[in-house]
Protein backbone atom coordinates (compact mmCIF):
# COMPACT_ATOMS: atom_id res chain seq x y z
CA UNK A 1 0.00 0.00 0.00
CA UNK A 2 1.48 3.37 -0.99
CA UNK A 3 0.29 5.05 2.21
CA UNK A 4 0.71 4.37 5.94
CA UNK A 5 -1.38 6.30 8.42
CA UNK A 6 -0.73 7.00 12.10
CA UNK A 7 -2.81 9.02 14.57
CA UNK A 8 -1.65 10.69 17.76
CA UNK A 9 -3.84 12.98 19.84
CA UNK A 10 -5.42 15.41 17.35
CA UNK A 11 -2.87 14.87 14.62
CA UNK A 12 -3.20 12.34 11.83
CA UNK A 13 -0.13 11.71 9.67
CA UNK A 14 -0.24 10.02 6.26
CA UNK A 15 3.14 8.78 5.02
CA UNK A 16 2.90 8.53 1.25
CA UNK A 17 5.38 6.41 -0.68
CA UNK A 18 6.31 5.27 -4.18
CA UNK A 19 5.01 6.80 -7.40
CA UNK A 20 2.06 9.18 -7.26
CA UNK A 21 0.07 9.36 -10.45
CA UNK A 22 -3.62 9.30 -11.41
CA UNK A 23 -3.67 5.51 -10.99
CA UNK A 24 -2.02 5.21 -7.58
CA UNK A 25 -3.70 8.37 -6.22
CA UNK A 26 -7.08 6.63 -6.11
CA UNK A 27 -6.06 4.10 -3.44
CA UNK A 28 -4.14 6.71 -1.44
CA UNK A 29 -7.15 9.03 -1.49
CA UNK A 30 -9.54 6.33 -0.32
CA UNK A 31 -7.25 5.21 2.50
CA UNK A 32 -6.73 8.73 3.85
CA UNK A 33 -10.38 9.77 3.51
CA UNK A 34 -11.55 6.71 5.43
CA UNK A 35 -9.28 7.65 8.31
CA UNK A 36 -10.25 11.34 8.21
CA UNK A 37 -13.87 10.24 8.53
CA UNK A 38 -13.02 8.09 11.57
CA UNK A 39 -10.49 10.32 13.35
CA UNK A 40 -11.66 13.81 12.39
CA UNK A 41 -8.15 15.18 13.04
CA UNK A 42 -7.49 18.82 13.97
CA UNK A 43 -4.28 18.53 11.96
CA UNK A 44 -3.73 16.37 8.87
CA UNK A 45 -0.07 15.98 8.03
CA UNK A 46 0.83 14.60 4.59
CA UNK A 47 4.42 13.34 4.59
CA UNK A 48 5.96 12.98 1.11
CA UNK A 49 9.48 11.93 2.13
CA UNK A 50 9.20 8.43 0.64
CA UNK A 51 7.65 9.55 -2.65
CA UNK A 52 9.80 8.66 -5.68
CA UNK A 53 7.72 10.22 -8.48
CA UNK A 54 4.85 12.68 -8.67
CA UNK A 55 2.92 14.35 -11.46
CA UNK A 56 0.03 16.85 -11.22
CA UNK A 57 -2.20 14.11 -9.75
CA UNK A 58 -0.32 14.83 -6.51
CA UNK A 59 -1.69 18.38 -6.56
CA UNK A 60 -5.25 17.12 -6.86
CA UNK A 61 -4.56 14.63 -4.11
CA UNK A 62 -3.35 17.30 -1.67
CA UNK A 63 -6.12 19.73 -2.61
CA UNK A 64 -8.77 17.05 -2.15
CA UNK A 65 -7.49 16.01 1.31
CA UNK A 66 -7.23 19.66 2.33
CA UNK A 67 -10.88 20.17 1.47
CA UNK A 68 -11.99 16.96 3.12
CA UNK A 69 -10.10 17.65 6.37
CA UNK A 70 -11.61 21.13 6.41
CA UNK A 71 -15.12 19.63 6.32
CA UNK A 72 -14.38 18.32 9.81
CA UNK A 73 -12.68 21.53 10.89
CA UNK A 74 -9.14 20.24 10.41
CA UNK A 75 -6.23 21.97 8.73
CA UNK A 76 -3.63 20.35 6.44
CA UNK A 77 0.14 20.57 6.29
CA UNK A 78 2.57 19.03 3.81
CA UNK A 79 5.92 17.74 5.05
CA UNK A 80 9.11 16.79 3.23
CA UNK A 81 8.16 17.32 -0.39
CA UNK A 82 11.13 15.92 -2.39
CA UNK A 83 13.14 18.38 -4.46
CA UNK A 84 12.09 16.85 -7.81
CA UNK A 85 8.41 17.52 -7.00
CA UNK A 86 8.89 21.16 -6.07
CA UNK A 87 8.57 22.32 -9.68
CA UNK A 88 5.05 20.82 -9.84
CA UNK A 89 4.20 22.39 -6.50
CA UNK A 90 5.28 25.86 -7.58
CA UNK A 91 3.02 25.61 -10.64
CA UNK A 92 0.08 24.70 -8.44
CA UNK A 93 0.20 27.70 -6.13
CA UNK A 94 -0.80 25.34 -3.28
CA UNK A 95 1.81 26.95 -1.05
CA UNK A 96 -0.42 30.00 -0.79
CA UNK A 97 -3.09 28.10 1.13
CA UNK A 98 -1.22 25.17 2.69
CA UNK A 99 1.90 25.16 4.86
CA UNK A 100 4.82 23.23 3.34
CA UNK A 101 7.84 22.44 5.47
CA UNK A 102 10.81 20.12 5.79
CA UNK A 103 11.84 18.03 8.75
CA UNK A 104 15.36 16.74 9.21
Amino acid at each position, binding site marked *: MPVRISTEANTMTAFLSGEID*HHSAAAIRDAIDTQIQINRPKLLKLDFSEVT*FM*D*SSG*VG*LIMGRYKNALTFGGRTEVANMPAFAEKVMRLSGLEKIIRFYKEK
Partner: protein
Amino acid sequence: MQVINEMKLVIDALSVNEGYCRVAVATFVSQLDPTIEELNDVKTSVSEAVTNCIVHAYPKKRGKIYITARLYADGLSRVTIKDRGIGIEDVKKAREPLFTTAGGERSGLGFSVMESFSDKLTVRSKPGWGTSVTIEKRIAGKGK
Protein backbone atom coordinates in the same frame (compact mmCIF):
# COMPACT_ATOMS: atom_id res chain seq x y z
CA MET B 1 19.03 16.10 -37.70
CA GLN B 2 19.62 12.37 -37.75
CA VAL B 3 17.33 10.02 -35.79
CA ILE B 4 19.64 7.60 -33.98
CA ASN B 5 16.93 5.44 -32.44
CA GLU B 6 13.17 5.19 -32.56
CA MET B 7 10.46 3.27 -30.77
CA LYS B 8 6.70 3.13 -31.07
CA LEU B 9 4.45 1.82 -28.34
CA VAL B 10 0.72 1.16 -28.63
CA ILE B 11 -1.03 0.26 -25.41
CA ASP B 12 -4.52 0.08 -23.90
CA ALA B 13 -5.71 3.34 -22.32
CA LEU B 14 -6.01 1.81 -18.85
CA SER B 15 -4.84 3.59 -15.73
CA VAL B 16 -2.84 0.50 -14.75
CA ASN B 17 -0.55 1.33 -17.73
CA GLU B 18 0.37 4.87 -16.61
CA GLY B 19 3.53 3.85 -14.80
CA TYR B 20 4.49 1.45 -17.57
CA CYS B 21 4.28 4.11 -20.29
CA ARG B 22 6.40 6.74 -18.56
CA VAL B 23 9.02 4.17 -17.57
CA ALA B 24 9.07 2.72 -21.11
CA VAL B 25 9.75 6.17 -22.56
CA ALA B 26 12.21 7.24 -19.84
CA THR B 27 14.22 4.03 -20.16
CA PHE B 28 14.46 4.57 -23.91
CA VAL B 29 15.54 8.21 -23.48
CA SER B 30 18.17 7.00 -20.97
CA GLN B 31 20.33 6.11 -23.96
CA LEU B 32 21.09 9.84 -24.27
CA ASP B 33 22.66 9.63 -20.79
CA PRO B 34 20.39 12.24 -19.17
CA THR B 35 20.84 13.64 -15.68
CA ILE B 36 18.38 12.43 -13.04
CA GLU B 37 16.57 15.74 -13.28
CA GLU B 38 16.26 15.62 -17.07
CA LEU B 39 14.93 12.09 -16.87
CA ASN B 40 12.40 13.08 -14.22
CA ASP B 41 11.25 15.94 -16.47
CA VAL B 42 10.62 13.50 -19.33
CA LYS B 43 8.88 11.03 -17.01
CA THR B 44 6.63 13.68 -15.54
CA SER B 45 5.53 15.26 -18.81
CA VAL B 46 4.91 11.85 -20.41
CA SER B 47 2.88 10.87 -17.35
CA GLU B 48 0.64 13.92 -17.81
CA ALA B 49 0.03 13.25 -21.49
CA VAL B 50 -0.65 9.55 -20.94
CA THR B 51 -3.01 10.28 -18.05
CA ASN B 52 -4.95 12.67 -20.29
CA CYS B 53 -5.49 9.88 -22.83
CA ILE B 54 -6.83 7.70 -20.04
CA VAL B 55 -8.92 10.30 -18.22
CA HIS B 56 -10.26 12.47 -21.04
CA ALA B 57 -9.92 10.87 -24.47
CA TYR B 58 -12.19 7.85 -24.23
CA PRO B 59 -15.18 8.58 -22.00
CA LYS B 60 -17.30 5.84 -23.57
CA LYS B 61 -15.13 3.19 -25.19
CA ARG B 62 -11.88 1.43 -24.44
CA GLY B 63 -9.22 3.03 -26.59
CA LYS B 64 -5.50 2.97 -27.25
CA ILE B 65 -2.55 5.22 -26.52
CA TYR B 66 0.00 5.68 -29.34
CA ILE B 67 3.47 6.71 -28.24
CA THR B 68 6.45 7.47 -30.48
CA ALA B 69 9.87 8.34 -29.08
CA ARG B 70 12.72 9.54 -31.27
CA LEU B 71 16.29 10.21 -30.21
CA TYR B 72 18.45 12.55 -32.29
CA ALA B 73 22.21 12.67 -32.73
CA ASP B 74 22.41 16.13 -31.13
CA GLY B 75 20.74 14.98 -27.89
CA LEU B 76 17.15 15.96 -28.64
CA SER B 77 14.38 13.61 -27.54
CA ARG B 78 10.98 13.98 -29.18
CA VAL B 79 8.05 12.06 -27.74
CA THR B 80 4.57 12.04 -29.24
CA ILE B 81 1.58 10.78 -27.23
CA LYS B 82 -1.54 10.37 -29.31
CA ASP B 83 -5.07 9.09 -28.92
CA ARG B 84 -8.01 8.58 -31.26
CA GLY B 85 -10.47 9.85 -28.72
CA ILE B 86 -12.96 12.69 -28.49
CA GLY B 87 -10.43 15.47 -29.10
CA ILE B 88 -10.34 19.00 -27.70
CA GLU B 89 -12.70 21.75 -28.84
CA ASP B 90 -10.48 24.71 -27.85
CA VAL B 91 -6.82 23.79 -27.44
CA LYS B 92 -5.74 27.28 -26.38
CA LYS B 93 -8.21 27.25 -23.50
CA ALA B 94 -7.33 23.67 -22.57
CA ARG B 95 -3.67 24.67 -22.20
CA GLU B 96 -4.46 27.44 -19.69
CA PRO B 97 -3.31 26.65 -16.14
CA LEU B 98 -6.03 25.24 -13.88
CA PHE B 99 -8.48 24.70 -16.75
CA THR B 100 -10.14 21.31 -16.52
CA THR B 101 -13.35 19.79 -17.82
CA ALA B 102 -13.05 16.83 -15.53
CA GLY B 103 -14.62 16.50 -12.13
CA GLY B 104 -12.91 14.40 -9.50
CA GLU B 105 -9.52 15.65 -8.49
CA ARG B 106 -7.96 16.75 -11.78
CA SER B 107 -6.03 19.91 -11.11
CA GLY B 108 -6.08 21.34 -14.62
CA LEU B 109 -2.30 21.55 -14.49
CA GLY B 110 -1.45 18.75 -16.94
CA PHE B 111 -0.55 20.96 -19.89
CA SER B 112 1.22 23.49 -17.62
CA VAL B 113 3.44 20.72 -16.28
CA MET B 114 4.18 19.40 -19.80
CA GLU B 115 5.08 22.93 -20.87
CA SER B 116 7.37 23.79 -18.01
CA PHE B 117 9.05 20.35 -17.91
CA SER B 118 9.94 20.33 -21.61
CA ASP B 119 11.64 22.62 -24.10
CA LYS B 120 8.74 22.65 -26.54
CA LEU B 121 5.18 21.39 -26.37
CA THR B 122 3.00 20.97 -29.44
CA VAL B 123 -0.68 20.03 -29.10
CA ARG B 124 -2.77 19.04 -32.08
CA SER B 125 -6.39 18.08 -31.60
CA LYS B 126 -9.71 17.92 -33.41
CA PRO B 127 -13.05 16.85 -31.96
CA GLY B 128 -13.82 13.33 -33.14
CA TRP B 129 -10.29 12.80 -34.47
CA GLY B 130 -8.26 12.68 -31.28
CA THR B 131 -5.35 14.47 -29.70
CA SER B 132 -1.62 14.42 -30.35
CA VAL B 133 0.87 15.92 -27.92
CA THR B 134 4.56 16.27 -28.80
CA ILE B 135 7.09 16.87 -26.06
CA GLU B 136 10.59 17.93 -27.04
CA LYS B 137 13.31 17.80 -24.46
CA ARG B 138 16.94 18.52 -25.12
CA ILE B 139 19.18 16.19 -23.11
CA ALA B 140 22.42 17.92 -22.21
CA GLY B 141 23.26 14.86 -20.18
CA LYS B 142 25.71 13.87 -17.51
CA GLY B 143 28.70 14.18 -19.81
CA LYS B 144 28.27 17.91 -20.39
